[in-house]
């Protein structure tokens, strides 16, 4: 992660990269046989966070089966630190919206999302949760979950292959790695089908 533009009048951004004194100090310590590495605290936290994202077991239809395949032996998302699927939204970090969301289910999904603790992420899996998919014309299908809750990653497919799901998960990991944990971006507030404020 790069040092971003820091706005301090008396100090230039390049000066932050000039860590000669710190490097000398480290070399001295290493000469004495002490193992030391320097890193930013944000990187450390994000490394830990991105490799222990706990998904919420939420599935309404077909994509849920492919989600189960990703969890099982062949594809095994435990390799990415996702293995602990949680049955309670209060313990989960990410919700996979796998399957169609209907009008009756929409307020339930919103309630589940609200119950999750910050920082929380949403992955829209499959055509139905992205846009309504094959059921776009129906009178009872919400055309995209992003009308109800903010979505971080979209995984297209009907249903997406397990490999696609793994790719989507890795995209979310990348996103988490670039975040500033102590200053998390504000989630857009979605109500009545319109997005208000927030930058994504």
């Amino acid at each position, binding site marked *: 992660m790069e040092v971003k533009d820091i706005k301090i009048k008396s100090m230039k951004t390049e000066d932050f990269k000039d860590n000669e004194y710190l490097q000398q100090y480290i070399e001295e310590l290493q000469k004495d046989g002490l193992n030391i590495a320097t890193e930013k605290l944000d990187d450390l936290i994000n490394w830990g966070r991105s490799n222990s994202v706990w998904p919420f077991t939420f599935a309404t239809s*077909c994509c*849920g089966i492919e989600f189960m395949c990703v969890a099982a*032996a062949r594809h095994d998302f435990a390799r990415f630190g996702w293995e602990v699927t949680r049955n309670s939204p209060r313990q989960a970090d990410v919700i996979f919206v796998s399957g169609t969301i209907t*009008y*009756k289910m929409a*307020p*339930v999904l919103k309630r589940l999302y609200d119950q999750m603790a910050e920082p929380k992420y949403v992955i829209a899996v499959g055509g139905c949760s992205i846009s309504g998919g094959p*059921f776009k014309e129906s*009178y009872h299908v919400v055309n995209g979950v992003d009308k109800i809750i903010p979505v971080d990653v979209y995984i297209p497919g009907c*249903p997406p292959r397990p490999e696609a799901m793994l790719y989507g998960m890795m995209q979310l990991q990348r996103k988490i790695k670039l975040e500033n944990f102590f200053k998390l971006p504000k989630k857009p507030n979605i109500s009545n089908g319109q997005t208000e404020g927030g930058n994504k």
Partner: protein
Amino acid sequence: MDNMQKYIQTLAPKAQFEEGGQYLTTTIEPDALRKVATGLKEKGFDYLMCLTGMDYKESLGVIYHISSSNPKEKETVIVLKTSTTNREEPAIPTVSDIWEIATYYEREAYDFYGIIFVNHPDMRRLFLREDWVGFPFRKDYVVNDEINPVPTKVPDPDDYEAVPSYSLNKEGKLVKKTKSLFENKDYIVNIGPQHPSTHGVLHLRTKLEGEIIKHIDPHFGYIHRGIEKMCESMTYPQMLYLTERLDYLCGTMNRHGLCMCIEKAAGIEVPARAQYIRTIFDELTRIASHLIGWACMCNDMGSITAFIYGMRDREKIMDIYEETAGGRLMVNYYVVGGVAQDIHPNFVNRVKEFIPYMRKMIEEYHTLFTHNPIAAGRMKDCGFLTKEQAVALGVTGPSGRASGWSCDVRKIAPYAAYDKVKFDEMLHQGGGTFDRYMIRLEEIEQSLRIIEQLIDNIPEGDCRAKVPAIIKLPAGEYYQRVENARGDFGVYINSTGDKNPYRVKFRSPCLSLVTALDPMCTEQKIADLIMISGSLDYVIPCIDR
């Protein structure tokens, strides 16, 4: 069948019979419905297969597909039709006391068409919310998001616990009565709609006394997508795509049902090669589906190893699918007139390798789980369903056969290549959770046996018949049954001769399975509910459609 025609005529002299249909079809007045229904039940027609609401534009009606739980010679089905011209307050007498499953089927017809069933004990909507305005399946219904917006609040339980019922007074007018489903002192536990073990978004309102279940009120519709209504504006090949999304675990079999219904109506002869390939694919899907059923049931009971094992072996079938059809879960392989393309050169070898592998694995499953005294001890002696209850609720498939009801459509009305192979219909007499568990593993073995007989004998030739670019079905009604991994799946098409159907109805086997939860779980412990529902292996999107 002539006898039955005379019998119905004595019960309802005004009955009109249709000539040349697939089944004996009778149109009767609503007043005579109960008399005919009772008479048919006495004659052994105790299995209400399908109940379809209809909008004939000038009138609203109901179609009953009635069959017998013990067909003597071959498939016997009688179709009853009745309708009323009153569109404001359409009233038809209920048959819910004659066939128990009609309690739910009639609620569905009310939900879609607003047909009021007189003297029905529970006239709530089945799928849509109570505050939904209008009846979406009526031909004059207009989709309007301003009238029915995306709701922002979960409804208050009082909304769906107020149970209305209608009766006729002396002047022949409808009188509405409302009672509450539960009393204030009752202890209710909500299971679902979001629960990892309900196999989808099912909502069970469970009345408890201590830890003993007293009553279960299933609440559907969280995944109701209106597939049947969407089909009415689609052409026939387009509809195929949606059938796999009904019950995604038996996608090919559902699609097979619709393909056969269209082929039968259009008079398309399917080549023998396609019939064989379809049968093999159906049986592979049955194995895959039973594996998931087994894996999830064991997972619900706390055995994660079993879940991993089941999913691992299912991946082998997914590989076979992928090579030939390109798809994994949604195979998208069957088309009207045959299959989309010929099988992959590796297909036969792959399947032949799979059969001994699977046999070995089943032995392992038995060693690891079935013979485990803790698992077996939990499954035995709980969740019983008698044969009479299974027939009354229309519980077909492995769950019906575990109760001793011989209801395999592959035997009653063979289709594709099922009449060319030898296999046993597995029957258990106990009707308990352990029987339902065992029957799935036994059916996997039978499926392997069927595949073994067919795989070397796939005939040469075309895999697809020539089909006109635009398929138009002759005007009429068509019904096709197939045995999917959960039971008797039915497709009903009503055509007016156009390129899209007038009405499509899918008979879901899973609705019966969920309704059977109430008689099975009453007086059982709440901890066993998840295991019993796991043994039924239902798929919710198939119910909600």
